[in-house]
């Protein structure tokens, strides 16, 4: 059975969402040096905001994404300011900080569940506030592709260009890169590292919010979706190497496409049904392979050296 256009579109939308999430996760990882286990739930906050604007108040999708960005950004910023920074000031070690993000995650899942119960009383168009999807809202075809696909492409392109310009063309962006590279030195040179870190969390949360909105186009969302999707986000970041934002982009597409198209092909090859169960196994397998072969991720591999060595071996084999 050939893979249909709709399936390809869905996998593209999902991959785009993963790219936004992986960039955000990498950004926060670079600042606090620990993975944010609540990152998936930040995305679902965005998804619920989009849901509220579109399905309850019947406003435009653009307004919904704005709300999703703002809510995600606020949640990310608060997580950093109220939990992680105070703990870092107290000298909590990496283990303690990771547990704290787990605590934030479960708190957010609780908040989302409560919110879902409250929204149910506001009679959303989709009829349910648990296990919903906005797929039917973005199915109009424009120039061959669905609206949802265009929105996801537009959001990712816009976010990547904006982030690139911010990091390379503005003084603040340079300060940001400096404080990530060497916080002490940046501080000595008068960079407000605290502000820079707070802004990183704000941006990361906002991107996660957007990604959550995109996910609601292709997945069924419930308050616990984030705690499962975080596996794919980690896979994307680890494949990219956890150290570079470009790695997040590459990892996001690689993991997103292999989770959707790869699982589909694998399922057909092995004659398995119910492929959704094996999606996260594909992500797990990617994590395992990358950690065993190249723990620094794709961006950490010295490709030129590897290529030269392979060529050298090939020549030796010929000789």
């Amino acid at each position: 059975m050939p893979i249909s256009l709709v399936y390809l579109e869905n996998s593209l939308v999902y991959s785009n969402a993963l790219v936004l999430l992986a960039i955000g996760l990498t950004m926060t990882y670079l600042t606090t040096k620990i993975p944010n286990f609540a990152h998936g739930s930040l995305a679902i906050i965005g998804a619920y905001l989009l849901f509220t604007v579109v399905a309850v108040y019947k406003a435009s999708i653009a307004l919904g994404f704005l709300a999703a960005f703002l809510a995600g950004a606020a949640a990310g910023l608060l997580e950093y300011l109220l939990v992680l920074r105070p703990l870092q000031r107290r000298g909590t070690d990496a283990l303690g900080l990771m547990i704290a993000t787990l605590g934030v995650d479960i708190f957010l899942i609780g908040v989302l569940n409560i919110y879902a119960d409250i929204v149910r009383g506001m009679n959303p168009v989709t009829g349910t506030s648990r296990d919903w999807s906005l797929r039917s809202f973005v199915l109009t075809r424009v120039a061959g592709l669905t609206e949802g696909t265009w929105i996801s492409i537009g959001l990712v392109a816009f976010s990547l260009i904006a982030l690139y310009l911010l990091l390379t063309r503005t003084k603040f962006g340079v300060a940001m890169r400096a404080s990530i590279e060497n916080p002490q030195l940046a501080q000595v040179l008068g960079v407000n590292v605290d502000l820079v870190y707070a802004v990183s969390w704000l941006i990361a949360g906002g991107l996660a919010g957007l990604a959550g909105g995109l996910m609601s186009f292709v997945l069924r969302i419930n308050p616990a979706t984030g705690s499962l999707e975080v596996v794919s986000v980690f896979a994307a970041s680890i494949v990219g190497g956890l150290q570079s934002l470009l790695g997040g982009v590459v990892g996001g597409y690689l993991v997103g496409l292999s989770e959707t198209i790869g699982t589909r092909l694998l399922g057909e090859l092995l004659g398995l049904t119910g492929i959704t169960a094996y999606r996260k196994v594909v992500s797990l397998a990617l994590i395992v392979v990358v950690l065993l072969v190249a723990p620094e991720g794709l961006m950490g591999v010295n490709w030129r050296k590897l290529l030269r060595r392979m060529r050298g071996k090939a020549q030796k084999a010929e000789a």
Partner: protein
Amino acid sequence: MAVPVIGVLFEPSFWLWVAVYAIVSLSLNIEAGVTGIPNFGKHLAVLVGAIVAAALPGYLGLALLPADVKQQLEAMTGGQLSYAGSYNTLIADALSRYFAEHPALSLALFLLVLVVAALVGAAVGWLAAYPAARLREDYLAITLLAAAEASMIVAYNAPQLGGTLGLTVPNTLVWLDNIVSRLGVSDPHTVSTLIITALVAVVVFAYLELVLRSPMGRLLKGVRDNEAAAESLGKDVTRIKLKTLMIGSALAAIAGALFMTGSLGWMATSYNRVSWTFWVWAMMILGGMANNLGTLLGTFILVLVRQMITYNKTLIAPYLPFDPAWLDYLVLGALLVVVLMVRPQGVLPEKTMYPLPRSRLEEKAKSLGAPASGRGAAR
């Protein structure tokens, strides 16, 4: 509201929760508290143990049935005799009845479940940690979490385990149930599960306490406090971490198998991250990391808190526009963060373990000609 609080202490089900969680949190303590391994996939081992307890009595029990009993069953199900099929409840009931008539067989199956659960748990603990054991702790945390989540989704969809509907599991503890029910207990199965689980918990506590006081315990703490130093003294840090995870996972798998045997119903979603990773971490951190007694205390406190929320749910439900079950999550999440901020060492902080009793140490110091030891001089 005082009545449910006191009342709960007389419920065997409450103490069963305490005993099961005690095993899991003690096993996490040796991994995370003592050795510093961030096992964020604790529910993986519990899940694996529960899978063994759900699958083995059914599949093996069905295979061991004598031909005439099998034929009787086949007549009832119309020739279909698959444990996880549409006649699961019927088959499980028939097996339970057969086990009740053959207590020796059920005892053997029960012990086999525990042994297999421990072995499979240890293997899974090693497998899940192997790719990242050499790397920094955050990679290990991510890998363990991802492995646990992926496994749960697969188990939830596996047709061999009844898929999303779950399974009814035959009772392998029926030999003890029969003895207990003769004593006139109203809920014999819970009580008999409690007896076994409490016994296991006591043994686990004693074993881990011995480990903690032994040279092995000091080595594990050394790995946690300074990996480079431990390595420079010739210790293979990666291997020690993997071994610790194998022991911790084996113990957690036994707890999962016992819990599953107690509930007699398999449902993959019962073994989720919130119940068997978050709560367990909260118990250990609240009680005191690297302190077994503290971990037990934290376990007791949090099981009590959780039961109180459950008991009083119906009282507060009318005043809330949402299901009060979610308060569970808010309390747990906030508690984790607050404890980390206010009292990161927990209720009972870690104690320094002396290789010899204090008095013997002082004697030794004296015989070596050290200045007469006042209080604290031997430290």
